[in-house]
């Protein structure tokens, strides 16, 4: 996975610069989700697969991922969070490529992805729908509506990924409204659930390789991740949900990425 290491380094640097230059927060949840998005888009998804970002606050990581694929340009990224941009803090509607739908309010993605997976079945289209959610998002009742529906409809062309970084807007998921552990709750609804290290490409690969085993409904990958991954002083800190990078921390993070 040498290539992935280089890819991750390149993407992380660009993501940090984007957030630093625009002085925008949400960096923590972008860094927890970036590795999985990169791995999925570069090593898993084919031309028939679709990706929906339900945790829209990780838009920066999606933009950078699309940039690594050549679907967004350097000049596109330079507009991030600027006036007149199409790269807003959460994905906007009706703009692609690689951005299926505008999201940002949590709890929409599972049902949207279920609708797409069901449409694929009706249209006899190959491929899967991948949907990345946050872990706090499972406090939204609508996600469970989507799970009930997806299982009942036996949507075995749907993969749900959960960025389990354990932190949300104003506390840890455990302190705020605990869903720990998510796995038994989801298996209780009849879903096929596996866990993976969301920063280890080999672990993600092993998890993804099992998705065909879920024949009766959606496949779920719980990605154990670190909010603010790779930034000293931001890792596993709730503040990384909101606070932008200051100059010393940004320089330090970039310097750390340069170390082989």
């Amino acid at each position: 996975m040498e290539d992935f290491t280089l890819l991750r380094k390149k993407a992380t640097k660009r993501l940090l610069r984007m957030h630093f230059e625009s002085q925008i927060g949400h960096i923590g949840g972008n860094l927890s989700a970036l590795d999985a998005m990169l791995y999925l888009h570069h090593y898993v998804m084919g031309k028939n697969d679709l990706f929906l970002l339900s945790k829209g606050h990780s838009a920066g990581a999606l933009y950078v991922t699309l940039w690594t694929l050549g679907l967004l340009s350097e000049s596109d990224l330079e507009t991030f969070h600027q006036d007149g941009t199409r790269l807003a803090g959460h994905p906007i509607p009706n703009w692609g490529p690689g951005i299926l739908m505008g999201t940002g309010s949590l709890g929409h993605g599972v049902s949207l992805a279920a609708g797409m997976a069901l449409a694929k079945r009706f249209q006899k289209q190959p491929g899967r729908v991948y949907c990345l959610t946050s872990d706090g998002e499972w406090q939204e009742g609508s996600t469970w509506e989507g799970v009930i529906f997806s299982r009942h409809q036996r949507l075995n062309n749907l993969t749900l990924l959960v960025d389990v970084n354990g932190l949300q807007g104003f506390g840890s998921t455990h302190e705020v409204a605990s869903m720990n552990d998510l796995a038994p709750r989801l298996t209780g609804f009849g879903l096929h659930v596996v866990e993976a290290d969301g920063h280890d490409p080999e672990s993600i690969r092993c998890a993804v390789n099992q998705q065909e085993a879920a024949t009766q409904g959606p496949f779920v990958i719980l990605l154990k991740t670190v909010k603010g991954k790779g930034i000293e002083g931001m890792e596993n800190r709730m503040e990384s949900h909101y606070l932008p990078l200051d100059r010393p921390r940004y320089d330090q993070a970039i310097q750390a990425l340069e170390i082989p």
Partner: protein
Amino acid sequence: MRHAACSSWINLFRRQNFVFLTGDLGFGALEPLRDEMGQHFINVGIAEQNMVSVAAGMARMGMSAWIYSIAPFCYARPFEQIRNDVCLHGLPVKIVGNGGGYGYGTMGSSHHALEDYGTLLSLPGMRAYVPIFAADVDPMVKKMAQESHPAYLRLGRCERPKEYAIPPYAPWRRLLTGGGTPALVIGPLAGGVIEACWILPEGHRPEIWGLCQLPMTAYPPPQAFIDLVRLRRKLVVIEEHGVHGSAGQMLAHTFLQNNISLDSFVHMHAVGYPSATYGSQSFHRKECGLDKNTLLKILTG
């Protein structure tokens, strides 16, 4: 109107592919549609937020999707899904709400829809269809199926007077000629108003117009209607909907923008639950002054 809608959807399905999602509603009316559509008819269960987002996801994939429930359950509960997933994306999801206004009567306020089209029309691209007669439903369904907009269909109970010949469907149409006060009625209430007025001498009875499609920015009043209110300088607007976001407000706005001034503009609309007691649709209409006797007095007074 549910039976009329069911027939229209069956005919539509025989011509074009679409999915019909219901939030566990339709007993006693939609069974023929379920049998006709097979796997394209999906009871998603009591989960309206999911129903809207699933429909949006399917529409995003190019499929035509209709959703159905009791009116407030399909516009109030999943409002954010309609806003974000349907309207902000301009997806042509069709929302059907049964029981417009006080249609569900004694079932109580949870089942009433007094702010449905006003609320939905605040969203980008949304169109609302409010049939007056059951016969209006079929042309509406055909039109909705062809349009690329998100749309809302408000079903109610047809109140067509016996022996009344319904004029051909149009978004705006003259329902009863008369030399008296012009009235604009939205929805099935028009049936009762026609019934109360048509026995009056034509020279003195109100002239009744019906409006079936909103918003007024998309379906502006026809010149014949504008000429009428300019000539008679008065108008009564009647609708089973709260004042905010109502057709009456839209019309007042349209008049102001077009320098149309009147001596009298009376707006009869739903006012909620003034006595804090509940009853049939007729009971609630009477509390709001939307019953035939009160309306007749206002129109002929």
